[in-house]
């Protein structure tokens, strides 16, 4: 059982520094030894309008999903915070700016939307910001100071983290420190903490080995750890961050990042680099994946090892650029013309983003196939404490090099039992070959005859079976053992909520189990069938309208599935899943 499980939300308009404040908060809490999971909601516009919410869950135990219900709401913009007010818990704390620029009408201030048991603390954030820095921009820092003062955090430690973050910008660190202190001092001198919420820990927790990372950061780290040496991309929310990180870090590793004029060019460059034997990737989101879909087919056809990360967001088309969704599954599986088998993996946590991006390079290289990693906006941007996995050095060189025998008469498209043709790296003497988007025979000559096409199509599908047998881990089962009244199947980031929900449901005595599989194609169908047979009812929660994952599973198993589909722009909370579990199981236990 968790002693501390608080959800702190900072809500403001874009431009208020809401997200920066949330970032600093999560970073500092994590540094002080808490487990945190933070997630931002923000609009596409930089300034002017649009709500931003920095949502940070703090606990003394590891976290996998967002919590529903807010314990502490820090309002940097009241109209937006009012929308958040219904999610306030009964004894929640609200901090707000008690000195807005001008008078507001009734109900326009968050103070008028509280529940009777809520605790309200007014801090004149704008005024204190003006006072300490002569500008508005530090309201967020003042708010952090107020938060730190109110919850009696390690103020000096906090301040140290804060100033070190800004130390590169001359003068900014001083301003930030002044604003932070203004917030702390105001709270200490003017407010008396009367709410029962606490961040006090019995003992200082173990901090070793933890890093505070977002899915994007973990993915970038995974790419680095897997010795990715080429990245090309085009800015797109939420994947841009990966490029930004790699831009700063790849050059030191001897790698290259190219920001291209569009996604078409990005995947093209990645294709070329991969052809030359470099581990190469691009990251994008749905609209970019659409542009790349022709190249996906090309790489299936040309048996080229590219890694494409898709940070899913609300769609279709430009859609909801800053909202999370899991609705690209079908495109990732099938998008492009022709029969184009490819490997699709969907990490379920930040740590898995790291591991599976690295693994994606291994799989792509070994099986000469595009690997699509499905992240999503929530996973890409939520930050949490993770311990990163060690990457097996053996997996860093997975190319199936032709044997000396094979080299005598090198055929790039050699038909083999496992479906993988040996591949030479350009520059290898005698290993010259040609790839094309055209169907080719073993020698590489364009061939449009029935026999070749059938043979080659079979080969490309056979690789997938080989991969399944050799390198795709079996699905993992959670929850109760044996027969279960309810089985939960999910994918991607939603799995985090499922894990926490099942854990709690089991604590409450429900017989519930869950099955987690990160690799969605190829699929361990036998295990899936066995699990389905063990469960009376099946539930598939996911963030899309029609149940894309449930549809995908239904192509393999006949058991009926209940779908919990949401497209409400928010990640599922464990409470959402837990409620559904309880709805289905009733008191039956």
């Amino acid at each position, binding site marked *: 059982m968790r002693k501390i499980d608080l959800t702190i939300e900072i809500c403001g308009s874009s*431009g208020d520094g809401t997200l920066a404040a949330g970032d600093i908060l999560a970073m500092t809490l994590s540094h002080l030894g808490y487990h945190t999971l933070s997630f931002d909601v923000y609009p*596409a*516009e*930089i*300034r*002017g*309008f649009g709500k931003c919410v920095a949502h940070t869950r703090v606990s003394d135990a590891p976290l996998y999903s967002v919590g529903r219900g807010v314990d502490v709401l820090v309002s940097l913009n009241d109209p937006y915070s009012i929308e958040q007010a219904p999610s306030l818990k009964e004894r929640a704390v609200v901090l707000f700016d008690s000195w807005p620029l001008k008078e507001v009408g009734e109900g326009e201030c968050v103070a008028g939307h509280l529940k009777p048991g809520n605790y309200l603390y007014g801090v004149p954030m704008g005024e204190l910001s003006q006072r300490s820095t002569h500008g508005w921009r530090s309201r967020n820092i003042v708010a952090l100071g107020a938060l730190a003062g109110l919850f009696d955090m390690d103020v000096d430690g906090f301040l140290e983290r804060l100033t070190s973050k800004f130390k590169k910008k001359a003068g900014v660190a001083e301003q930030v420190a002044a604003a932070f202190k203004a917030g702390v001092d105001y709270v200490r001198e003017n407010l008396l903490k009367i709410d029962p919420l606490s961040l006090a820990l019995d003992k200082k927790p173990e901090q070793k080995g933890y890093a505070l990372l977002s899915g994007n950061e973990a993915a970038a780290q995974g790419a680095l750890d897997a010795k990715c040496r080429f990245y090309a991309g*085009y*800015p*797109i*929310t939420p994947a*841009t961050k990966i*490029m*930004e990180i790699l*831009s*700063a870090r790849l*050059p030191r590793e001897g790698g290259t*990042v190219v*920001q291209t*004029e*569009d996604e078409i060019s990005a995947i093209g460059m990645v294709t070329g680099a991969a052809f030359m034997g470099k581990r190469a990737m691009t990251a994008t989101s749905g*609209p970019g994946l659409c542009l790349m879909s022709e190249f996906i087919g090309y790489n299936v056809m040309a048996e080229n090892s590219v890694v494409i990360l898709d940070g899913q967001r609300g769609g279709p088309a*430009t859609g909801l650029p800053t909202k999370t969704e899991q609705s690209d599954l079908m495109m990732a599986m099938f998008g492009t013309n022709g029969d184009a088998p490819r490997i699709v993996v969907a990490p379920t946590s930040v740590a898995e983003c790291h591991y599976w991006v690295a693994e994606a390079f291994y799989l792509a290289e070994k099986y000469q196939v595009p690997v699509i990693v499905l992240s999503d906006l929530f996973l890409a941007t939520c930050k949490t404490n993770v311990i990163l996995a060690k990457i097996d050095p053996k997996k860093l060189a997975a190319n199936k090099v032709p044997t000396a025998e094979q080299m005598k008469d090198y055929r790039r498209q050699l038909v083999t039992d496992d479906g993988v043709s040996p591949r030479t790296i350009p520059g290898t003497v005698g290993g010259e070959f040609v790839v094309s988007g055209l169907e080719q025979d073993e020698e590489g000559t364009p061939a449009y005859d029935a026999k070749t096409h059938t043979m080659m199509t079979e080969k490309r599908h056979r690789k997938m079976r080989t991969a399944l047998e050799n390198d795709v881990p079996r699905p993992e089962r959670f929850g109760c053992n044996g027969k279960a009244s309810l089985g939960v199947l999910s994918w991607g980031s939603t799995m985090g909520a499922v894990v926490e929900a099942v854990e709690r449901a089991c604590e409450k005595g429900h017989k519930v189990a869950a099955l987690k599989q990160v690799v969605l194609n190829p699929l361990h169908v036998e295990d899936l069938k066995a699990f389905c047979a063990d469960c009376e009812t099946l539930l598939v929660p996911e963030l899309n309208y029609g149940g894309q994952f449930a549809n995908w599973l239904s192509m393999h198993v006949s058991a009926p599935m209940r779908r919990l589909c949401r497209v409400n722009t928010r990640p599922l909370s464990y409470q959402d899943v837990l409620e559904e579990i309880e709805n289905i199981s009733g008191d039956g236990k």
Partner: protein
Amino acid sequence: MNETAAKPEVFYLDEEISRVRGSGMLSYRSSRLPTWCPGCGFFGIEHALTEAIRELGIKSHELVVVSGIGCTGRYPFFINGYGIHALHGRALPVATGAKIARPELNVAALTGDGDCMGIGIGHLPHACRRNTDIVCVLFDNNIYGLTKGQTSPTTPTRQQTNSHPFGNPDVPLDPVRFVLGAGASFVARGYAGRPRDMQVLFREAFLHKGFSFVHIMSPCVTFDKVNYTYQRLNELIMPLPKRHDFTDLNMAMERALDRELFLGLFYKEERPTFAEQMRSYAERAGGEK
């Protein structure tokens, strides 16, 4: 000491407001307040463009504004007229189609540096060659603003951005040179901090028959605090030399290659538009009458 001293530049707010209201400029605005960051150069461009449209007497319903994605892309929401917020980089094709379908309307394609010179640059030289009678305004702030500060195709070499923390390795594209090279028939450059100048350029661009390309340098106050700031641009810009001849392509190219950032009308050439060409071919082929 007495009150008969000449009054230097005194103005009264009520008189100024009456002047603005009387001019009709406000009728070209929508009710939505622009959402660009306060201080953004795009406000100046918007203001000048509105003033030019007003000056020309173009009616709101005769105006079609097409934009792509990016900060510039927001523009159609703030203007009173027909607006198309198209896909990233694809403003020019949409605008071209619109103009060909309804030649009697005034079509402007508003694009940003990422939009026009990056993802959509494939369309740009073809738009120049085709010489469709549209006005293309390039809102050039040298940065990707909407995705929070990455390098754009016009970002100067060595400038540090979020995507190039050690500096941009590429040579920036100069839009003026590019379109001069691609055969644009009207090429001008303005600066967002000089709304009156821009107004004249926009007016001329609308009056020009053919593809009119106006490059506007505009600071991004949020993500570019070092390079193209108002302060620096104010120092860098200068009007084209007095002896400049805008009918001379060589001279125009020379000015474009000059290290100075010249403002004004670089080049202007009267030649048949796409529609005129098509019509003349049709006539020659004896199709329509």
